[in-house]
């Protein structure tokens, strides 16, 4: 699936994560992660984002993730919201949830 436009979900509050998705034509899913817990949970955060985007069949995307200590469920929710906005989908993607 092609990302149509740059979209963002989430805030910079504690325990949240802000995900910004931008179009890319190649290079797979490239994540630029900014997190205070990157050394302990960086790989896990990137895996949740990648898995969620793969669920939308997004193959190429630039992801800017500013993490403020979000749990996996929050990371997934924000990624889904950003993906739906980027794909201009208005109906919930039930199979991804």
């Amino acid at each position, binding site marked *: 699936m092609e990302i149509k436009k740059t979209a963002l979900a989430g805030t910079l509050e*504690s*325990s949240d994560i802000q995900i910004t998705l931008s179009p890319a034509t190649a290079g797979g899913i490239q994540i630029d992660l900014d997190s*205070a*817990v990157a*050394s*302990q*949970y*960086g*790989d*896990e955060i990137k895996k949740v984002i990648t898995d969620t985007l793969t669920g939308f069949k997004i193959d190429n995307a630039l992801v800017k993730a500013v993490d*403020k*200590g*979000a*749990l*996996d469920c929050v990371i997934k929710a924000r990624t889904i919201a950003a993906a739906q906005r980027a794909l201009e989908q208005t109906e919930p993607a039930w199979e991804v949830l």
Partner: protein
Amino acid sequence: MSKNNVGVDIPDSILNQYDYKPYAGAKLGNPVSQRVAPQVRAQFGENKVVNSIADVVKAEVKDGMTISFHHHLREGDQVFNEVMQVIIDQGIKDLTLAPSSLTNVMNDMVVKAIKAGTVTHITSSGMRGSLGDAVSHGALKSPVIFRSHGGRARAIETGKIKIDVAFLGVPNSDAEGNANGMTGDAAFGSLGYALMDAKYANKVVLLTDNLVDYPNTPASINQTQVDYVVKVAQVGDPDKIGSGATRFTKDPKELKIAQMVNDVITHSQYFKDGFSFQTGSGGAALAVTRYLRQSMLDKGIKASFALGGITKPTTDLLAEGLVKKVMDVQDFDKGAANSMHTNPAQQEIDASWYADPFNKGAMVDKLDVVILSALQIDTDFNVNVLTGSDGVLRGAVGGHQDAATAKLTIISAPLVRGRLATIVPKMTSITTPGESIDVVVTEIGIAINPRRKDLIDALSHIPGVPVFTIQELAAKAEAIVGKPKAIEYTDRPVALVEYRDGSLIDVINQVKD
């Protein structure tokens, strides 16, 4: 390699190079030590007042010396940066920096002094921010030595820390050096930590923005100890020295923890007339004081004394007659500082009287109940208050090890902070041994140290206070945040953590980038 009493492997090379014994336990027996005395240059009424820090530094500070400061001015401190800049400018090298602690406002200056070669050794209670980051990444060649407030007093008295020149900011002084912490624009209350430096440094330099008539009373530091009085524009920013009004937390998690801490105290054998206590300055600790007040009123119980770092909720109890004496080594807010000025039952005590394990009896030995915080707690009840879960220095020992020797030591901490577990199988460093810790209180319930069978009996059936094992709490935390990747370290030590008796409780290594 020697394993110390909290299971830390300490390389023999470190024990030999820095002359340490591995930590052997919190029970110290009755050690006999030899005190040292400072060098004194006699004066007979000559003028001690000088207007230039540079002149004093030029006359007294030489390469390789040990210099000290206190941290009573906290984030409002303007003395440290001014003096250090002068020392850097004069090209002095290879100093040992031995302050009572380092606050955030000093961080960048210390980093600058390290880069300039001015400071090559540090001993402190703690460090954080840009300085903690720099040191954890190997900025200093020699490891920092962390000591508790009681441990620093011991080290000064026994000559392990030999202060050549102490630079002490005071909110008032007369021309001879009689000074206290209670009046003036930069008033901060107790001078508890600085009193050690005033007593044991070879040269004592007071810096003040408030020169008052001779003789100045009450004098906490007195003229028999002081070599110079330097007049400066401002020693501290009054708005940043201590928070003006202590706010009662509205955070439901903190309130829940505070309520459970209070339940633990009031259901213990120690909650009786004449008990004594110490609380910290965090939101939960302050809330505990409020709950404790109500419990004391309900049961008609009065405390004999409150100890340590003092806040307004504690001095309110003093004013109300619920606490008979406040024994005050430092004040965390203006309310507590003002109270010391007006209430004679609030006694200023020095760090040795407060917590030194090598004197003839410290006040922590008489302490019944203490509430302390933690960055991490492990499943042996050991506590870390020095390093973050990324292994980087971001805290201070403070009086943690000292006060933890109380009869009932309670650690109050949330189960998780953001994505970080507080209760973990293995911490990034050990500050206080689990042997000293009795109860851990989180928002979901408590864990009681199995060493304390009496407390398990007393505290296992409190309504609304679920009891878990510490392993269960660690598992619940991990279920929320997930399993973290282990932090990687190099084999180069960046900090040595002393126990209060001067034995080595942990070695902190440089984190890998």
